[in-house]
């Protein structure tokens, strides 16, 4: 039939355009300065600092011109997905640990092993971060900053309630008891903390303290249903006893955090969020250790909070590697960027950066547990971001009392396994 024939012709034309898009890109002239497209996420403050660092890079490398492109985190990933699918990924891109495997395994990223030792020196990276950008033996990203799990709290709230401040060796029972005491002593005006089952990484920390992993080496869930049920039950009890901040209060104040509004006495989270909280509240905040039932094992590791990758399609991998090298090793770059992107990932830059206030507190905290920090686990499996979102959502429904613990556990396992299998 005529219509059908026309339809298939159009379809063929379309898929041609579509397939061709993946190998697009004009060839640049060989001579003359090389232009690198560099994309990153961040805000206006970071934009100013990165531009300054790029200027410095360009004076040091007059043959390389860098054109930056920046968006806010969520928008950045949306754009990155479109650019990459359309065959137009930038030369150098900022990478998140959660997305690393997703991008690396699909052949989007360049293996930087080929540049190591020539244009890229990774030898000065902190011990815990070495190899953090590796996926299946290839080096697909280099960390520029790291963070770890911690407990941010208000010492004043603790002393007011007559609870001793947390110190190394405190257990999850101690933590729950402290929250209960604080909540009771204020009559519910301030809660002892947020419900820690709302955050996936609290489960990871508990697992690691037991010598287990969130994801096994072959990319499966590192825990079973009873273990997750135990975790959820802890939170369910805390919520039912009204010891922790009720979930609806937390939802109401989004995009702010409860700590910033003095609604809770402390919370577990990434240590670099300390700087964010400190900027938002007048209450003095401190960083303390994570509770653990196993004194020999804090379950913590230095996680690359931000990495840099090179696109597999880049025509200038050498120059791209040079730019990454500059961002992680150059003391001048370290000085300009300071702790804006987190505490720097190399010893050299950590020494070059003068840290003050909350930034110094974060660095001191990491120093204090340095010997207990383990090497980062392999990059999480494909779909880890989806699984984390599912966890947050299901935990929220549980806290609202819309589903039971058993339903929550089943739902999570169904969704997680479906994601991991596909």
């Amino acid at each position, binding site marked *: 039939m005529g219509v059908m024939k026309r339809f298939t012709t159009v379809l063929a034309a379309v898929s041609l355009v579509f397939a061709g898009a993946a190998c697009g890109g004009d060839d640049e002239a060989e001579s003359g300065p090389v232009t690198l*497209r560099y994309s990153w996420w961040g*805000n206006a403050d970071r934009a100013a600092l990165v*531009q300054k660092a790029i200027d410095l890079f360009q004076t040091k490398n007059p043959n390389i011109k860098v054109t930056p492109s920046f968006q806010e985190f969520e*928008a950045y990933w949306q754009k990155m997905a*479109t650019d990459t699918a359309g065959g137009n990924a930038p030369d150098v891109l900022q990478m998140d640990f959660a997305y690393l495997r997703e991008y690396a395994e699909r052949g989007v990223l360049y293996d930087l092993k080929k540049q190591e030792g020539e244009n890229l020196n990774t030898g000065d990276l902190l011990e815990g971060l070495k190899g953090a950008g590796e996926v299946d033996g290839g080096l697909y990203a280099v960390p520029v900053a790291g963070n770890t799990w911690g407990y941010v709290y208000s010492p004043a709230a603790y002393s007011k309630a007559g609870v001793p401040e947390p110190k190394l060796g405190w257990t999850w029972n101690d933590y729950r008891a402290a929250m209960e005491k604080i909540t009771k002593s204020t009559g519910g005006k301030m809660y002892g903390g947020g419900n820690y089952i709302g955050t996936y990484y609290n489960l990871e920390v508990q697992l690691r303290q037991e010598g287990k992993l969130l994801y096994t080496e072959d990319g499966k869930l590192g825990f079973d249903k009873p273990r997750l049920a135990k975790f959820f039950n802890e939170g369910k009890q805390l919520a039912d006893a009204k010891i922790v901040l009720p979930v609806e209060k937390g939802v109401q104040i989004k995009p702010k955090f409860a700590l910033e509004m003095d609604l809770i006495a402390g919370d577990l989270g990434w240590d670099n969020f300390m700087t964010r909280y400190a900027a938002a509240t007048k209450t003095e905040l401190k960083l303390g250790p994570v509770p653990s039932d196993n004194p020999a094992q804090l379950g913590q590791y230095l996680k690359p909070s931000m990495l840099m990758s090179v696109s597999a399609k880049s025509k200038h991998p050498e120059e791209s590697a040079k730019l990454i090298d500059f961002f992680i090793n150059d003391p001048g770059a370290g000085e300009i960027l300071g702790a804006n992107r987190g505490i720097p990932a190399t010893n050299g830059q950590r020494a070059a950066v003068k840290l003050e206030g909350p930034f110094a507190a974060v660095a001191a905290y990491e120093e204090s547990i340095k010997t207990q920090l383990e090497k980062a686990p392999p990059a999480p499996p494909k779909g880890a971001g989806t699984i984390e979102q599912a966890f947050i959502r299901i935990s929220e429904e549980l806290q609202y009392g819309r589903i039971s613990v058993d339903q929550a556990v089943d739902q999570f396992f169904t969704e997680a396994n479906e994601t991991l299998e596909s």
Partner: protein
Amino acid sequence: MKLSTVAWHAGVLAVLAIVLYPIVWVVAATFKPSADIIGSLSLLPSAPTTANYERAVEGIASISIGRFFWNSTILAVLSVVGTVASSALAGYAFARLRFRGRGAMFALMISTLLLPFHVLIIPQYAVFQRLGLIDTYVPLLIGKFLAAEAFFVFLMVQFMRTIPQELDESAKMDGAGHWGIFWHIILPLARPALITTAIFTFIWSWNDFFGPLVYLSTPDKYPLPLALQLFVDEASGSDFGALMAMSMLALVPVILFFLFFQRFLVEGVSTSGLKG
């Protein structure tokens, strides 16, 4: 003043007070210290400050705020020109002319409204990438000149169909061609629709985030909504004060545009001496 007029004003103002309360809240919030914006229950700032506006107009990475305004203006104005012209032409054809395939094409046009744009964006991107038009304004504008926004074509059709057919026929008797009818009869009578289209196009273009995000890479070319988003940062804390101050500044041109053009909505068919 007549009593009914007073009552009318009182009634409208009462409804308005409710409708505008949230906007008053935003304006008041821009004068609060950034940290106090979320969670404060009082409407008015306790210690008013202009610091939010100062940070908002500072610009981003040595790109001035004026640049973002300029980019937004260029995009919005060209969008208005393209959309009004192309939609009026297409609307006239659908509403007043009879030709083969009209029904099918009309159905096709409506169906383009039904598909969420998120699934179209990647194929569309691939086309523009092949044409080397990424990081230019072309992908953002070309659709406007080619009546790709079915909403407006449909709007024109609905309006033009209400214009009495007798007018065309008498003009035809006088020897006018299709262009003459379109230009001298339909366009003047469809003015409310043209103005409506212009207003919507301007506002939607001005507020569009997704299109510019996907197609533009160079910060120099960003329009305001992209710049606005740069005050948001999960890790180091968002600058809600500057964000809201900038949203308010960004509102000013749209309000002016609206105030200027909505006046033309007032005169309708009844004043142009038309008998139904």
